[in-house]
């Protein structure tokens, strides 16, 4: 049990660490995708089948494409694909973003009362039907908020992409 977990965490953390240290953006993006796939394997290990496949479908299938397209469409040549030298502003931004994520995760871990629940012999599994009922009834507000957020992001992306065109003027 623990050996499997160790292999999975090495896969996730290792690929993420190498992704950060590499200078080639495409290699970093592909390793980041490997890290996401590792998270999916972790969900599978934890018995959350549906979430694991959803993670694969959304992250490895869709978000990876957005990342790769963004990298390729914003760089003009292969020489620009290497990351610039470290700078203070980037370090501060990275620490702020990473620290925020860490705080959220740490508070979630600290709030969970692990001792209160007896360790089950068989890890609990949840069927798709139960998950759907949970999402649509008790967590429907959260689902709606996420939906609105995604719609706003989509509209924002369209606005950003469209405003770029108008700046060029009406030259043919």
């Amino acid at each position: 049990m623990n050996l499997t977990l160790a292999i999975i965490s090495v896969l996730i953390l290792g690929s993420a660490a190498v992704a950060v240290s590499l200078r080639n953006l495409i290699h970093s993006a592909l390793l980041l995708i490997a890290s996401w796939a590792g998270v999916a394997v972790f969900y599978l290990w934890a018995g959350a089948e549906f979430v694991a496949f959803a993670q694969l479908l959304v992250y490895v299938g869709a978000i990876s494409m957005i990342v790769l397209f963004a990298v390729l469409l914003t760089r003009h040549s292969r020489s620009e694909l290497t990351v610039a030298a470290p700078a203070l502003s980037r370090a501060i931004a990275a620490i702020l973003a990473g620290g925020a994520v860490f705080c959220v995760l740490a508070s979630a871990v600290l709030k969970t009362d692990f001792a209160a629940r007896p360790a089950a012999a068989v890890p609990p599994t949840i069927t798709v039907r139960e998950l759907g009922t949970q999402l649509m009834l008790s967590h429907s507000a959260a689902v709606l908020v996420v939906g609105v957020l995604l719609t706003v992001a989509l509209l924002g992306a369209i606005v950003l992409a469209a405003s770029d065109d108008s700046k060029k003027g009406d030259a043919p």
Partner: protein
Amino acid sequence: MSGAVILHVAANVSEWTSRHHSLTFAAAPETSWLERAPLLARDALTGLLPESLRWFANSLIGIGVILGAFGLLFAYLTLAERKILGRIQNRPGPNRTGWFGLLQPFADAVKALTKEDIVPHAADHVLHFLAPVVLVALSLMGFAVIPFGRELIAVELDAAVLYFFAAGAATELAVFMAGWASHNKYSLLAAMRALAQLISYELPLLLSFVPVVTLAGTLSTTQIVAAQAGWTAGFIPHWYVLTPWGLAGFLIFMVAALAESNRSPFDLPEAESELIAGHLTEYSGFKYALFFMAEYFGMCALSAMAVTLFLGGWQAPCAFLEWIPSYAWFAIKLLTLLLGFIWIRATLPRLRMDQLTRLAWKFLVPLALINLGNAAFWSLTASWTGPLQLARWAIALLVVIGPFVVLGRTLSTGVGPRTYRYAT
């Protein structure tokens, strides 16, 4: 130490498989000897092993059978394609190797293996090598959850349909890797074009099977097949393709499957004559063959999924034909769909890139969304009987045909037949 670890992992996996994989071989009393033959043969073989290793051997045999069967199917599908295309174009096709050219696939394999494998000097060697490997591996993963027969399924998952499409969605990554690692701007552009196509058709593909999941109430492939069991009056099967929403879903699924597997008329990503095979330009030898192997595997997997979702899986079409084993019915349906793919390739001209994306976003996606509403109507009116049943069919058919005609007419106005000055 390592032995203890292996035993520990084995215990874990066997516990996992016993939860997920119905290891009950107690077949229903009415199933014939032929029906149980594959499982009996497997059990006879693994019965020689000690009890603790059996689950492992069973899984290995399952993997081996899938690899062997679909490998052979791939080999002979290429031959069938060349023969049928040849006959349609009024030429004999390959007929020199073996009887009627039956050894041609093996000759092709030897040729691909002995060809020089050229890798461009500036290419990203690791990714250039990994792309075909990842593509073949991912396109094989889908077969794990297809119920090939009454009890022939490699892994039984609660979210099997989602697993299948998650594995399929990841193949886009391999296409990108192939295009980028070649260090050739035409390859990269072709990969972007291929990705645009794959992403566009992912949406109708996923939307078209949602009605099936809604009506069957499950994501498990075995239960979806079980939901299509039974006949009306003994000869009209309860397959989803025979309902208005199912027919529409099946057609949308097949068009999207054609595009997802890069088959003609959507074979823009690898059009040999115009686009020098797109993202495959810098590949040669066996790696090039691997890409085509993955394409055929993907085509077979999507067809098998279409059979499972819409054509009743391994169910027999009539009650009195049930004595033919279930896997034979599955094979017949699968081969029919695959021959349909080949027929379409021989008949339809290739689409232009803008026509291709327009078809996906303006035509297939709206139709699939309307079909979702149609399926909701169908499931809400399940209790209608007598004359109301007729009204139910009429309304559902209208919801399928109406938008199809209206959308088709509006989208094709002004596009009209094109006249070519020198070609008339």
